[in-house]
């Protein structure tokens, strides 16, 4: 399959690979996909108390498009607010990387990963609040 230069660049030089402390109350972790389907994406976001995404890390098991999609969104979400990050859609990812049609699901996964990470962060914050009150 012929990939775009952007996919190849992200595949060869993935940005922001790594692991954050899951237990950190300011870290939201999104784990999406399934090993049986051949794609698992884990996106972690470090979010300040006022909802700014300060840092992002990913680890992905999957094809070149899946790796590139996750690498790209880590770049995109950094510096954005949670609300801004929620508006990133798979179409933006697919367009930016010029993904071939059979690989669109990789961009869907990236969108899902952002949402899952933010949801995890919100859950943690709600739990903290509940504990405090």
């Amino acid at each position: 399959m012929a990939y775009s230069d952007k996919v190849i660049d992200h595949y060869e030089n993935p940005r922001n690979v790594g692991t954050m402390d899951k237990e950190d109350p300011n870290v939201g972790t999104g784990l999406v996909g399934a090993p049986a389907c051949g794609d698992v994406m884990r996106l972690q976001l470090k979010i300040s108390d006022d909802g700014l995404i300060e840092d992002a890390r990913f680890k992905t098991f999957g094809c070149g498009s899946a790796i590139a999609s996750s690498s790209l969104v880590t770049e995109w979400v950094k510096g954005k607010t949670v609300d801004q990050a929620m508006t990133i859609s798979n179409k933006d990812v697919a367009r930016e990387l010029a993904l071939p049609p059979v690989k669109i699901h990789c961009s869907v996964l990236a969108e899902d990963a952002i949402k899952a990470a933010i949801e995890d962060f919100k859950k943690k914050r709600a739990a903290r609040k509940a504990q405090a009150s």
Partner: protein
Amino acid sequence: MKLPIYMDNHATTPMDPRVLDVMLPYLREDFGNAASRNHVFGWKAEAAVKKARQQVAELIGATDQEIVFTSGATESDNLAIKGVVEYYKSKGDHIITLKTEHKAILDTCKRLERVRQERLDELKLLRLGQLAGRDVSPEEVAELATKHDLDNDETYKKWAEMPTGGARVTYLDVEKDGRVNLEKLEEAMTPKTVLVSIMFANNEIGVVQPIAEIGALCRKKGVLFHCDAVQGIGKVPFDVEAMKVDLASITSHKMYGPKGIGALYVRRKPRVRIAPIIDGGGHERGMRSGTLNVAAIVGFGHAAQLAREELADEAARILRLREKLRKGLTDALDMTIINGSMEHRLPGNLNISFAHAEGESLMMGIKDVAVSSGSACTSASLEPSYVLRALGVDEELAHSSIRFGLGRFTTEEEVDYVVQLVVDKVRKLRDMSPLYEMAKEGIDLKSIEWTAH
């Protein structure tokens, strides 16, 4: 060493330069039609074909009269299965094959199942029309069939047992090592079984089936035995007499000959008959009409001769290289699994899963090495290889599989390079893999509720 490196010899092999040399005169001055009986051009072509026929026959312990030239293995497989089903339809219509066979076998069998089903549907329509005393439309069949209970209708039951031109097919499971279970094979045989089709060596995992035992069983039961022998011939010894094979598919481009030429071995004693699927001038004793591709046949013949003469030395050399590759990879990397039997395996095959490193992205990382993913997920379908699934390989591992195919022109230097490159890339991908990290932490990946997508 030249890049890229070719390690996909199951897909096809490069032509041996010695083969091309013998072909060239038949593309230039000796271009005659082997069926032309009136002049020297025809005689020369005919003599060249006769020699090639002998060369191919000798490689498999057959006689030249038992070799039918075809366009390749897919046609040979079609001809063998459809030809037997058609010719022996009054005897029975049941075929047994394996779930791990090549698509040329599986899709041919599926086609025959469809033919039978369509015929049965027509008969159903006809019989319901008789019972209802009027013309019945296909939409009414389901409703009327319950009313008239065709399952207990003697006339319909008799009709349904008549030859349909199609077949019923049993797709047998294989054992964990990829080999057929002979007891299950015997159990699957019925008085209606006309053909068993089991491959010699698997194209993905290189596992070699117990052909002689299958042949003996089929002979004992009076069932014809077709063997898709494409991947194994020329690499490991194959003898139609010793193995009691009745029909065997062979192709030239998997043994360093040209593409577009293959053969079907059709046994003469005891005689096996097949109906042709291509009609015409009656070439190849009526079994496969069409002007012979003389130059390709000459190349095929020479490739067969070289394979026979060099088989023992070549197999030993390739096996040594394959073992070097296997050891190099498994010594350096943890969590690797070889798919299929190590004992009964082609010398040049290594199908290996690198757990938690995805196969397609690994191939992307080693783009200077031509290999094939064990999984078919490069296509629109995201399903992993049906062969690996039939072995009971985990889907995740099936997505992490690579098929290496070493061949005549693989060098030691190439193997060393590939080991280093693959080890580096697998490590890189695993550093990026959440699954590898979790496995290292001792998390059971099966305990996690994954979100499908």
